[in-house]
């Protein structure tokens, strides 16, 4: 699955949304959304605030009731048991004395935390923390982390699930430029290595054009979907954002200094 075939056949689809409709308090948040997430690729959902992007991810996670169908077949067995999720806003009680190491252990360790963290799990957690360049945070309390640090720890937590499908809701929000670059590079690298499917919400068109292999433009309805260069036309962007955005030059990373070497940044593949 290193080179995803962009002319999708259904066997290459990790998740397909079929006429998914979500209504809350009489307001249509998702209006008959049909979209696919190609297997092994990096799919980005873009759209303005309140477009229903987070809601679309939550329907997939089973947190929001919906009408329609969602088929998730992101592993060879035809299921989608392992999902890693990085929420947009991680609301938690900051007074709680939980260390980052415990935070990473609590989902996978059987032995209760009051008997400490087993060496094996500690080592594993440190490896995942190192992969997001945050091993120095292991003994800190999670309530004492900055927004960007928390975001990295959450990514480590999601990766630790060894997911078939990694769902990220604006993962780079609050992460500094270097962090954002690490996020995208890291995810591209891991995706190549482990072959998971990535589904993310992003506001940053530059990130999307560089990293996504597939884009879903959403504003309650699907305005367009497909490879970034085909989906992100001026008309589509005007349609969903309501004004002329213009196409982002795919050569410039935010800040203009770094270039992405991930497989999906390759222009030939995106075109």
């Amino acid at each position: 699955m290193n080179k995803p075939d962009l002319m999708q056949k259904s066997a290459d689809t990790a998740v397909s949304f079929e006429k998914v409709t979500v209504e809350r308090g009489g307001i249509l948040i998702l209006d008959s959304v049909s979209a696919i997430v190609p297997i092994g690729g990096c799919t980005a959902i873009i759209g303005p605030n309140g477009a229903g992007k987070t809601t679309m991810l939550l329907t997939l996670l089973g947190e929001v009731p919906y009408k329609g169908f969602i088929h998730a077949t992101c592993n060879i067995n035809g299921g989608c048991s392992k999902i890693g999720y990085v929420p947009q806003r991680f609301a938690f009680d900051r007074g709680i004395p939980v260390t980052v190491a415990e935070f990473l252990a609590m989902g996978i360790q059987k032995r209760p935390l009051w008997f400490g963290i087993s060496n094996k799990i500690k080592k594993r957690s440190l490896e995942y923390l190192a992969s997001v360049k945050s091993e120095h945070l292991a003994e800190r309390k999670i309530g004492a982390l900055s927004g960007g640090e928390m975001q990295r720890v959450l990514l480590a937590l999601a990766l630790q699930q060894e997911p078939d499908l990694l769902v990220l809701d604006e993962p780079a929000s609050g992460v500094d430029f270097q962090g954002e670059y690490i996020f995208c590079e890291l995810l591209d690298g891991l995706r190549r290595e482990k072959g998971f499917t990535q589904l993310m919400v992003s506001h940053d068109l530059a990130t999307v054009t560089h990293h996504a292999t597939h884009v879903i433009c959403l504003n309650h309805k699907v305005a367009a979907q497909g490879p970034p260069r085909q989906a992100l036309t001026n008309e589509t962007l005007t349609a969903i954002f309501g004004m002329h955005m213009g196409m982002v030059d795919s050569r410039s990373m935010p800040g203009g200094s770094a270039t992405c070497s991930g497989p999906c940044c390759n222009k030939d593949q995106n075109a």
Partner: protein
Amino acid sequence: MPDLSPIYHIVAQLLPFECLQAGFMQQAMVGLILLAPMAAAMGVQVVNFRMSFFSDAISHSAFAGVALGLIFSINPHWTMPVFGLLVGLGIMAVQHKTTLSSDTIIGVFFSAVIAFGLAVVSRDRSVARDMQRFLYGDILTISNNDIIWLIALFIAFMIFQALSYNRLLYIGLNSTLAKAHSIRVATYQYYFAGLLALIVMFSVWAVGVLLVTALLIVPAAAARNFARSAGSMFWWSLIISITSAIAGLIISAQDWATTATGATIILVACFWFIISVIASFIRRDSIR
């Protein structure tokens, strides 16, 4: 029925206070040493889940539980915990099935069980006198039988905590994330609510309806201030609750005190809390 007198004997040996030579005091001490850590450890999660209002509602359903027993002439010792369990699971089920806020749901249950209890009590004057026991607690009359039930509950509690402490922490931090990472959130929540309801009902005997929530919350809140990790929070809550229970019972039996046992235990726990606040100030690494 198993003979528990060796246990009472050990308690009297370990705590050589004059007041602990009486058999009923030894029973009360064993009952408290079983009950207090259960309440405190569950309290850690009650604080994490912000469920103190939930435990309040359960404890106040004690009235209605006793009233039901009187109506159907069943021993209130049975109707009280069973009714509490049903109310707890009922609240959980309604929370899962509707989009109403949990405060609203619990508030409705709360009013219903209190109104029902009061309605029955107001019909029957003789019951009204009995109700005092539930307001202030009555640990000194705990029977051998009650202690055997407490031991059974304690074993269930230890198994549950050993299996679910980590996952409950996950759910308490953020249930959406826990669910996405394939933790069976609803199952854990139901088991937790059921066990909590039973422990709350037993605690009503010990400290009375008014102070049950304090028995859960105060040691857990102090433990939060002392602990530097989620693991040590558990141990701190156990230490604080057991020492409060022992000290509370002994103080309440002194001639100069002769206070209600439940209230004295809570006062000692509150004293622990004040120390914990000072300690966290001194450490200055606490958030908030």
